[in-house]
């Protein structure tokens, strides 16, 4: 199993999903950057994180100056492109993903787009909640991809657009 790093946009949605703990079946360790921890305040989210740390599925990723610098450069670079840019938290995760071959977990559209247009990041695996649910279903941890996706969207108030759904259209009939 591989390691992953999650940004705030992913975590705050994913933690609202009633089967959120299933994610630990897919990754060796999921790292949470220190800056992401500062954005988490609710009791539910803090309990989820503390239990994950206690059980070993989560670990904190420190603010390393070299990665921070590169993340800031990426923030600047993404602003030269006429699509939604990335900000520091997701840029930090993308840099870690590229350097350490970690899967990046994000719901940030800017990060998902950047992976598609910036050659340096073509090789980084970037996954969203929908991708995690699909993988859990394929590994028989969930009974129905369609039903779970509907549940996830209901519980998180996160919806996926036609473009997001098209790659899974065969499994959503």
């Amino acid at each position, binding site marked *: 199993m591989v390691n992953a790093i999650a940004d705030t946009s992913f975590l705050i949605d994913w933690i609202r999903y009633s089967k959120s703990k299933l994610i630990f079946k897919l990754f060796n360790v999921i790292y949470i950057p220190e800056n992401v921890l*500062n954005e988490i305040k609710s009791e539910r989210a803090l309990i989820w994180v503390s239990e994950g740390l206690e059980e070993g599925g989560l670990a904190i990723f420190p603010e390393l100056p070299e990665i921070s610098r590169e993340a800031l450069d990426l923030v600047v670079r993404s602003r030269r492109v*006429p699509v*939604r840019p990335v900000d520091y938290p*997701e840029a930090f995760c993308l840099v870690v993903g590229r350097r350490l071959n970690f899967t990046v977990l994000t719901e940030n*559209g800017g990060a998902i*787009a950047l992976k598609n247009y910036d050659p340096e990041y073509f090789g980084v695996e970037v996954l969203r909640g929908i991708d995690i649910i699909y993988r859990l279903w394929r590994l028989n941890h969930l009974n129905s991809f369609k039903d779970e996706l509907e549940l996830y969207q209901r519980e*998180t108030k*996160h919806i996926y657009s036609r473009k997001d759904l098209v790659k899974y259209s065969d499994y959503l009939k």
Partner: protein
Amino acid sequence: MPETSDVSDKLKEWIEYFKEARDIRRKYANWDFIRSQPPKLRIALEYYIETGDLFNAAKLAGMSMEEFNELRIKAGIPSIG
């Protein structure tokens, strides 16, 4: 590695994708709720609707991202894109 024209086509697709996401946020937002908020929160919610950018919207509102996400849900704005 993709050709430059491929990258340009991809950028066009992403521009359309973000426009569609913005239109959906505008459509589902509870505008009465948003207009009833104090200026700091109203402006942050409007910024979020236009951009989908949770990080900076939360900073504008003076909240953590998770707190702003709760406000987004109260305002009926879907997270998309």
